[in-house]
């Protein structure tokens, strides 16, 4: 595969070049110290050196709120909402976020393939960029390196002079065609290391979790957790949703929409009469973490957490999924491995 050098000074040109082909979504600054994906208007506003975006690109394929249908209460008829595919380039996506998209692909395909998500997602092209792990990233522990280019159409690897650009698919080749760059023949410096780790190989996790259902960590974490649901809402592999009808004030029509929901929220399992199936905060935390490391993993053979660090960074109570997992690993080693 040919490696090109995309110099820092030409990044803006490259963004403009992509814009000439398709709509481009890329990370932008948001607020005082955050980043968010947004459609590119001004190529100079694109930021490729960022730690993580508030939400992943999931928001384009599974929007935070999505109208499923609109209804007319006078005729009792409905019209379906149009699903517009994202025929666009997603520029500056980190490896873990693309991996998360692949996981969502699985969830929305299994058994009942869902048109809404799949149609939106199928035309998307991805231009990845490597990242420098900060205090929260731990994707390396779940098999996703900071320069992992798998699944990308084009990948940019950060080096001192700019980026090494590689095209990995015909679609990627098409995207870079016509944009002239020198070939890069230099070495690839060693990637920066991760600062956070899960201290067990991925394939051992299932075994650890087999043993951890009644661990004290669930109760201990529940003392600090305020049940705000933030950790679900920022997670690129969370996909649970609620569905609700809204009626217009004129009372002649309205719409049915789905909205992101999360298993950390108490109301998530509440049924008529007020019974809550997962009432204990500890049981909810356990469910969330088991969803990331056991339940789906047992069926697919992969962790369902991509190690982006969002849940930890965003939790006002400072709850860290890595600490929880490492605690389980420790207890497992002590109670099972050492006594065996």
């Amino acid at each position, binding site marked *: 595969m040919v490696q090109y050098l995309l110099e820092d000074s030409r990044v803006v040109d490259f963004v403009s070049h992509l814009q000439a082909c398709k709509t481009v979504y890329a990370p932008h600054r948001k607020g005082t110290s955050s980043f968010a994906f947004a459609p590119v208007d001004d190529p100079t506003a694109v930021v490729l050196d960022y730690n993580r975006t508030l939400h992943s690109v999931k928001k384009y394929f599974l929007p935070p709120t999505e109208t*499923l*249908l609109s*209804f007319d*209460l006078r005729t*009792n*008829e*409905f019209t*379906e909402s149009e699903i517009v595919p994202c025929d666009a380039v997603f520029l500056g996506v980190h490896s873990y976020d693309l991996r998360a998209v*692949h*996981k969502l*692909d699985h*969830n*929305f*395909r*299994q*058994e*009942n*393939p*869902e*048109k*809404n998500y*799949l*149609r939106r*997602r*199928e*035309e*998307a092209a*991805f231009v990845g960029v490597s990242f420098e792990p900060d205090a929260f990233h731990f994707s390396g522990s779940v098999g996703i390196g900071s320069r992992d280019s798998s*699944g990308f159409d084009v990948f940019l690897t950060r080096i001192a002079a700019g980026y090494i650009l590689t095209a990995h698919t015909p679609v990627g080749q098409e995207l870079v065609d016509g944009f002239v760059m020198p070939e890069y023949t230099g070495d690839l410096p060693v990637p920066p290391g991760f600062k956070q780790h899960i201290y067990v190989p991925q394939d051992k996790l299932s075994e650890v979790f087999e043993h951890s*259902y009644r661990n004290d960590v669930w109760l201990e974490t529940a003392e600090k957790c305020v049940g705000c649901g933030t950790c679900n809402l920022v997670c690129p592999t969370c*996909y*649970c*949703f*609620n*569905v*609700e*009808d809204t*009626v217009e004030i004129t009372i002649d029509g309205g719409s*049915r929409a*789905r909205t992101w*929901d999360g*298993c950390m929220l108490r109301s*998530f*399992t*509440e*049924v*008529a*009469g007020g*019974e809550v*199936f997962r009432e204990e905060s500890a*049981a909810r935390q356990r*469910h969330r973490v*088991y969803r990331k490391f*056991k*339940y*789906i993993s*047992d*069926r*697919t053979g*992969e962790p369902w957490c991509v190690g982006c660090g969002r849940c930890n960074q965003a939790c006002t109570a400072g709850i860290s999924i890595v600490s929880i997992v490492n605690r389980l690993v420790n207890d497992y080693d002590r109670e099972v491995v050492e006594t065996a």
Partner: protein
Amino acid sequence: MTNASRTPSAESRDLYLPVMAAITDIRKMTEFETLYEITLPGGAELGHQPGQFVEVSLFGMGEAPFSVSSSPTRKGSFEMGVRRVGMLTDVMDRMQLGEKIGVRGPFGNGVPVEKFKGKDVLIVAGGIGLVPMRSMINYVLDNRGDFDRLIICYGARSDGELLFTDELKMWADDPRVEFHVTVDHGSTAWTGHTGVITTLIPGLDLDMPQTRVLVCGPPVMYRFVLLALRSKGVAEENIYMSLERRMKCGVGKCGHCQINSSYVCQDGPVYHYPDLKGLQEAL
């Protein structure tokens, strides 16, 4: 894992659009429960299995899951028994003949009827649990030759809360059915058995290896029924249970119905008991 990027999604479907179906009969069963007959456009078959459910939508109110109460052998329409408990069921309660509701489904796995064929079928239904079980009961009655004995244990809180009273009489009189009914608290007019549903089980004359059990009722009931079945000597692998959880999508996407690793709307609502033992949140 495969990368779905740019792979055709031709096989993907509209999962959330209902079919508009007409209410073609309404029978009030008790103060709170009503039986509805629903007819799909053109009299199309729902194509369900006993134990499956549909998502009913009333625009402006939302959707709620209801079991199909009629047997697939009864053609041209299907039935649902609905208990009035909240927003959507309140509005259903006020609906009139001919009005239309949205229907999605059938969803869920349903009863694995093959496993019951040639066997003695024991149905244990508590309260509203009779609604889905009635589909299986009538299925067995309509294919009577495929099954051996049909034993029904049904419990309600009081005689005023008994559902399908006409059918209960028919089953009681039908020599092909062994029918047992109990109420927790009988009125002065009640002459039948009094006591919770588990009190019916010890007296049953069961041919153990031959019996397949199907249980459906309110969450509190399961543990006690299991105990009673176990002390009767029923093997775990011969027990099936139908569970209920909060549901939204019905198609394994929204996450609400999950118990541990299992989606009740997809892997259930009918579970083989040995499979439930790994699901700590189930019972």
